């Protein structure tokens, strides 16, 4: 899978493209670990380019969520396709991490999380 990283203020935006599955999920975790080591712990995952996600990909999103929470950060999964959003729903993972349809709203939530403003 391809991961393109950019910044929006001090928010990290990761544009994911390809399949988020068992054979690729470790890539995402490795990238997030590198960022977390440098104290970038508020991350937006733009999933609009993810064609297919399985439970390994979902598990990796949950691992990232857990990792960032532990350091006082936050991850937001934005713009999943209907098929990917369905996986968050049927597993109820969307009740544990933020999954939203709009990228701008995701960035706003992450900025607000730094200032303590209502999300």
């Amino acid at each position, binding site marked *: 899978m391809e991961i393109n990283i950019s910044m929006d203020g001090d928010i990290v935006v990761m544009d994911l493209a390809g*399949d988020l*599955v*068992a*054979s690729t999920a470790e890539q995402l975790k490795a990238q997030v670990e590198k960022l977390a080591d440098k104290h970038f712990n508020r991350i937006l995952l733009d999933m609009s380019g993810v064609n*297919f996600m*399985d*439970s*390994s990909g*979902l*598990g*990796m999103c*949950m*691992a990232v*969520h*857990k990792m960032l*929470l532990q350091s006082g950060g936050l991850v937001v999964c934005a713009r999943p396709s*209907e*098929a990917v959003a*369905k*996986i968050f*729903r*049927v*597993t*109820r*993972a969307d*009740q*544990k*991490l933020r999954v939203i349809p709009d990228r701008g709203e995701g960035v706003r939530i992450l900025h607000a999380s730094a200032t303590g403003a209502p999300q």
Partner: protein
Amino acid sequence: MNRSENRFALVFEPVFPKIDEARAALTAFLQRSAPADAASFCGDFCLAATEALNNVVEHSGASRIEIACAVYPDAVLLSIKDDGKPFDPTGKVSLPGPEAGAAPEGGYGRSIVMELADSVHYRRQGSLNALTLRKSWTKQSRGGR
């Protein structure tokens, strides 16, 4: 590999990159065989198949996987056989509720299979695990809200 109009079969080594290839081949087969409005069906069925295959790689220690898919007017059947140790993925599973504490990172695969397939049957067939997934063309999964 063997393909005819409504049947598809494939044998492969149980490693994740081969599962990616098998999923791509199964997806292409279903898209050729499915009704025009069945895109969601194909996505759900291929995800259920992927999860079942991931389970083989992760749990059974097999050296070989054989899949066979048949398309019928009312449903699709997928048979998955592997030569690993006995592993029944149909045992009772429950999803963690929102009240649970730490977010789990695994354990979703079996529940996705059970959620997205209409029926899942396991039996030990000699030295093989034999799993069959069935999904109707018309029945909506519970996650389709």
